[in-house]
């Protein structure tokens, strides 16, 4: 029963990928490439690349991709459901606990310690995307020739528009995509 196998396989991926994002990669590889041979290693690398270029969490993306290749659109939907099912159960439980006990001073204390850490981790994630973008995936270097000037221009321009005029973030990203395309084509990157 292929649907059941897909569901169970992605259920495990959803359950064990703590920390999100790239933490899920080795688990997906184990399930999809090694255990079930639903994909070759090359296809798996391709799906990672595509995941980086498209919206959505990597686990959901690979669930859709694998599901559709193995069992068409129903397969994609079932694999995706399997993947988010553990989250739904666990997170809903936590949400309930939070709404019930959030005013306890002990819980407030724990959350008070976590809030500044969350700010820091968002900053850290932002920094790594910025570095990736400014040096186009290469190592950080101080040589101006290695810097992606178009990307720097887009970053500064977008940040200014966001802070000064409170531009909608989605428009900021779309504008960067459009202006980036034109500039990169002009300079022949």
């Amino acid at each position, binding site marked *: 029963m292929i649907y059941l196998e897909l569901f169970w396989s992605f259920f495990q991926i959803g359950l064990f990928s703590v920390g999100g994002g790239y933490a*899920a990669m080795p688990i997906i590889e184990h399930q999809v490439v090694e255990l079930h041979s639903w994909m070759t290693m090359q296809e798996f690398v391709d799906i990672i690349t*595509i995941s980086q270029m498209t919206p959505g969490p990597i686990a959901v993306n690979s669930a859709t991709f694998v599901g559709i290749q193995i069992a068409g659109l129903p397969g994609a939907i079932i694999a995706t459901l399997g993947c988010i099912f553990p989250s739904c159960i666990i997170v809903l439980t936590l949400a309930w606990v939070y709404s019930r006990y959030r005013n306890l001073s002990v819980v407030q204390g724990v959350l*008070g310690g976590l809030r*500044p850490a969350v700010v820091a981790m*968002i900053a850290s994630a932002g920094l790594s995307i910025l570095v990736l973008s400014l040096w186009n995936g290469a190592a950080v270097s101080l040589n101006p020739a290695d810097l992606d000037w178009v*990307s720097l221009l887009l970053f500064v321009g977008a940040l200014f528009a966001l802070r000064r005029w409170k531009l909608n973030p989605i428009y900021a990203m779309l504008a960067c995509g459009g202006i*980036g395309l034109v500039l990169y084509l002009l300079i022949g990157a």
Partner: protein
Amino acid sequence: MKKDFAFYRKLFTSTFSLSAFTFGGGYVIIPLMRKKFVEQYHWIEEEEMLDLTAIAQSAPGAIAVNASILIGYRLAGLVGAMVTVVGTVLPPLIILSLISLAYTAFQSSLIVKLVLRGMQAGVAAVIADVTLSMGWDVLKGKKWLPILIMFASFLAAAVFHVNVMVIILICAVIGLLATLHDERNGKAGA
């Protein structure tokens, strides 16, 4: 706020459009959600958004999915959670289904590559914008412990690449100990 059809439609379209633009996955959706639900709609408070983020990060599964479940549940219970999770999962489901039909063409397209490269700079700017606002709030609080936690966690994550789960755990323990210490000294809260 009234939980009528218009509310659920707004909830669905918000999560759908946010999810459609979370390139790079993970934390990228958090700044977007904060902008939408905290700044624009005023449905959720700033502090609560940070709490929900911490919970989303600590639970297994994709952060985007977890955060949308938490926000949906917070705003409208189980039905809300179902609306937001469907809204979050649909865009990647649709997009990946289309791409899997023609993925060699997609992968080798120069135009796609360049647009995405430009958008990456935009994503970095969006996160920088939100980080500045949130970091400023922590500094404005003028309490040394949260400020210390913020800078130490940033160093640990960005420079020393410490596992995020470890950072979360340590900060939770620090927060807990600080509260217990304050309470023993007869002060309420941290």
